[in-house]
């Protein structure tokens, strides 16, 4: 071979080639055999395992949120309902240019500019297939406006949904509270699984306190999903061997409140344009008839969502519309505590019904030159307890306060429920404060400050100084006065109705320990004096009580916001509006078989008898079925 140039031997070459083809074929068949063996392994041997995994892949359990319970007033009028509404949703994965889409939505006025960064963050943080809600409720015009331009907004769509609606929004806002979008903090507090699918939860008031009743139980359904977790339309679902199972949600319970919507509206109108609160209670069972704080806000905007600027405006409003004055506002009670103190004084023997004291218009402690002034500079002359209440003589109470003592004051006012939470079925109530020696020892750090001074007892006797009460506490105390010492826990919810069965459960009134003053003679005399406040020729609120076809009892209070120096006179006209005295009035009616007890507080209203009393009268007129001309 070496001597010649290599010569191709076609035959041996072909034989070699055929041998190689056979070798390659054998190897190929072997390799293909491995693939087939693998296929048999996957499709025959392990078929059951993979069949199960494939099933688990596409069936997903989706929560079905329950319908929230409705809220009714005592006459069955709707206070909170669920209305179908369209919300604007954006699905990030279907949007081509997020920034541009949001900008254009802002241009046509569907979202506001300042919310763009928030939505941007939401769209980029969550799962891309999960819709984010841009607006919870669109008006009819907005729906029409968007429907026309919808082709320009791929990935943005209208979704029907139930939205909480309060027909009398501002009127009932502080009593009912509102629902708002479920936050991470809410989910930590609530049962996370039970709230799967729920978008809103009660944030304040009845909505918050009764969340467990109102919410209901979540249901579920199994849905067929694709790999992105998105539910697929029904027609592509027939891969299923078995029909998806489901369980309907249990709707939340309907709540029946003791509130009277008509009375609530009257109270709301009476406070319109003012800062203040009204609480009306049925003294026979502690049912809240009206609870108003003014100014108010529209709770619907929390349920439907508002723009950041709207929320900031509500929060920064110096009249504080979001602040629930009725249960959270703490005010010096002023002279409204005089009937309670009179009962205490009679019980501990600090005075009696016939004792008469001289009033010159001021009072000084022995050995001190400091003058504690009466509201009437010229004085009331010689007065007994009855006159001291009906004319609101401060000097009389200054004098007997030393014999009652601060600890007895605390003891009895505490029994009337002042200075501590009433236990109303509503969250966020303030405690207020009725001072005592013990309290002062604990409240101050410096030893010098811990001593109780005699002068502090004097001003406590006219509800000034450290003393602070909420309108609700005051109304609750008036209810106890009206019921001659019998007390009930104030409450709003009187019954609830199971969402599924409609079975009604009545919540019985809860009696509280009665005030420990047993002598009916004391009660009748003090209450008669309160009657005189409104319906005697010398009563401080005789103007408000004039011409009433029924007998009523009341007591005015005017609480200092601003201390007038010793040498100066309080001159209403010269004092800044926000430094004027708070006007308070408590009242109940009818005198003999009371059906309503009211507390009215008008911030910086100057005069309890002039400003607050006519409102209390109007509320009572309305509740007892008379048309009122008191306002």
């Amino acid at each position, binding site marked *: 071979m070496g001597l010649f140039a290599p010569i*191709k031997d076609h035959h041996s070459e072909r034989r070699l080639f055929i041998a190689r*083809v056979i070798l390659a074929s054998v190897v190929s068949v072997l*390799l293909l055999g491995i693939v087939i063996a693998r296929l048999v392994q996957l499709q025959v041997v392990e078929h059951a395992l*993979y*069949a199960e995994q*494939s099933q688990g892949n*596409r069936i997903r359990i989706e929560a079905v949120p329950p319908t929230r319970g409705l809220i009714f007033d005592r006459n069955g009028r709707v206070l909170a309902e669920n209305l179908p509404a369209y919300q604007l949703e954006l699905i990030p994965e279907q949007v081509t240019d997020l920034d541009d889409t949001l900008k254009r939505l802002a241009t046509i006025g569907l979202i506001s500019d300042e919310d763009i960064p928030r939505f941007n963050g939401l769209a980029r943080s969550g799962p891309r297939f999960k819709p984010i809600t841009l607006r919870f409720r669109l008006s009819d015009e907005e729906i029409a406006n968007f429907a026309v331009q919808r082709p320009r907004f791929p990935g943005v769509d209208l979704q029907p949904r139930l939205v909480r609606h309060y027909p009398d929004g501002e009127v009932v806002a502080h009593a009912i509270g509102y629902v708002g979008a479920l936050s991470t903090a809410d989910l930590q507090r609530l049962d996370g699984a039970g709230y799967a699918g729920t978008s809103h939860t009660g944030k304040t008031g009845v909505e918050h306190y009764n969340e467990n009743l109102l919410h209901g139980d979540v249901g579920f359904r199994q849905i067929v999903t*694709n790999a992105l977790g998105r539910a697929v339309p029904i027609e592509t679902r027939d891969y299923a061997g078995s029909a998806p199972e489901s369980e309907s949600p249990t709707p939340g319970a309907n709540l029946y409140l003791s509130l009277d919507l008509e009375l609530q509206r009257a109270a709301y109108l009476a406070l319109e344009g003012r800062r203040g609160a009204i609480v009306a209670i049925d003294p026979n069972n502690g049912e809240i008839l009206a609870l108003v704080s003014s100014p108010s806000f529209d709770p619907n905007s929390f349920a439907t969502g508002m723009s950041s600027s709207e929320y900031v405006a509500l929060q920064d409003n110096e009249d504080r519309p979001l602040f629930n004055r009725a249960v959270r506002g703490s005010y010096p009670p002023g002279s409204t505590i005089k009937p309670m103190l009179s009962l205490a004084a009679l019980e501990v023997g600090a005075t009696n019904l016939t004792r008469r004291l001289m009033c010159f218009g001021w009072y000084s402690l022995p050995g001190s030159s400091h003058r504690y002034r009466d509201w009437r500079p010229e004085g009331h002359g010689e007065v007994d307890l009855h006159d001291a209440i009906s004319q609101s003589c401060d000097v009389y109470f200054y004098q007997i306060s030393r014999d009652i003592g601060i600890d007895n004051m605390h003891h009895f006012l505490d029994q009337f429920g002042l200075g501590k939470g009433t236990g109303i079925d509503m969250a966020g109530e303030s405690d207020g404060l009725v001072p005592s020696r013990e309290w002062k020892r604990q409240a101050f750090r410096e030893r010098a400050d811990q001593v109780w001074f005699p002068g502090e007892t004097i001003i406590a006797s006219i509800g000034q100084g450290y003393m602070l009460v909420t309108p609700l506490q005051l109304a609750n105390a008036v209810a106890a006065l009206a019921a001659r010492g019998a007390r009930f826990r104030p409450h709003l919810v009187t019954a609830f109705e199971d969402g599924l069965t409609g079975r009604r459960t009545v919540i019985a009134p809860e009696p509280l320990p009665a005030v420990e003053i047993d002598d009916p003679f004391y009660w009748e005399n003090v209450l008669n004096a309160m009657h005189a406040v409104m319906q005697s020729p010398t009563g401080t609120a005789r103007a408000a009580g004039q011409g009433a076809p029924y007998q009523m009892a009341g007591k005015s209070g005017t609480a200092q916001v601003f201390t007038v120096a010793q040498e100066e006179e309080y001159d209403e006209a010269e004092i800044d509006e926000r430094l004027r005295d708070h006007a308070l009035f408590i009242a109940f009616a009818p005198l003999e078989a009371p059906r309503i007890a009211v507390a009215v507080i008008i911030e910086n209203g100057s005069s309890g008898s002039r400003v607050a009393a006519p409102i209390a009268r109007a509320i009572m007129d309305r509740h007892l079925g008379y048309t009122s001309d008191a306002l």
Partner: protein
Amino acid sequence: MRFSDPQRLYSGGSPPIGGMGSLMQRLYLDGPLLGGLAAVCSLGLVVLYSAVSQNMDLWVQQLIRLFVALVAMVVVAQLPPDLLRRWTPWGYLAGLGLLILVLVRGEVSQGAQRWLDVGIRFQPSEVMKLAVPMMAAWYLHDRQLPPRFLDIIVIAVMIVVPTVLIAKQPDLGTALLIAMSGVLVVVLAGLSIRVMILLGLAAIPGAWALWQFMQEYQKQRVLTLLNPEADPLGAGYNIIQSKIAIGSGGLFGKGWTNGSQAQLEFLPERDTDFIFAVMGEELGLLGVLALLAMYLFVIGRGLYIAIQARDTFSRLIAGSISLTFFVYVFVNTAMVTGLVPVVGVPLPLVSFGGTSMVTLMSGFGILMSIHRHRKLLPH
């Protein structure tokens, strides 16, 4: 004109065939091979219709591509093997030039420079799929076989240069397949078993070198194959979903267009690299075996044509094309069933996609040309 070539007419010896047969003969087409290919393509189109979620537009696109590929096959079948052999070096050099061009100014698609826009977008690496084995066969055509050591070195250079260029795009999967088609030529030419074993042993450090050369995503694919469950939602997702699809198909499958894995989009790349899993899910083991049988028939016919071929070039190129086709089938099915790493090799003639189908069909056109022109060759 060629039809009236007297040499062809008289040297055939086969009796005149009427109807279809005559048309096939006149077009230099091979009936059994064409039948096998038609069977594979038809089944492929059926599966693809389901894999593209009944999207008629995409399906028609594929049908058009198939038609273009068939035209390419028929055109190539008209070129006699001698002509093809003479053109081979020029085709190879042109392919190399295009590969260099694509590296310099190619279009970037999905992070890789593979496309060249010359009126239509195409991948020069596709040219090399045929040019590399043809070049190797061209070189060995006049030489004594089995090849000597020096020949092997020369061919190795012919293979390595385009392979490296393609691997740099980077497209390691295609590069390895092209190298494989060149190596197959040498093996078929009679490379001694001893040398093959030696090369196999040398492959161990070679694999290590390759590992160093790999991109991070390629390393990840190998690691994923070893333990797909380690990252079920990331790199292991494809393999896990593919195994679930095939396994849940069972013996008879869930029914055409009823595969939940495929239709509900759990299975990624279900119309391209993972279409075999769609088939396994919907048509079951029986459907998959039917497809494999069709493939085997096509490959078997290709090898038969190779054995029947009358000259070295034809023999080698026919064998290489047939076996490379097998390698595609094997790598894709082994990859989808989780036997080898995901290397991005489509299932030939079934997966959605254009250029590779034209290349494949041109290859079969060469096979047909070899078979129908063999009577013209001197003994």
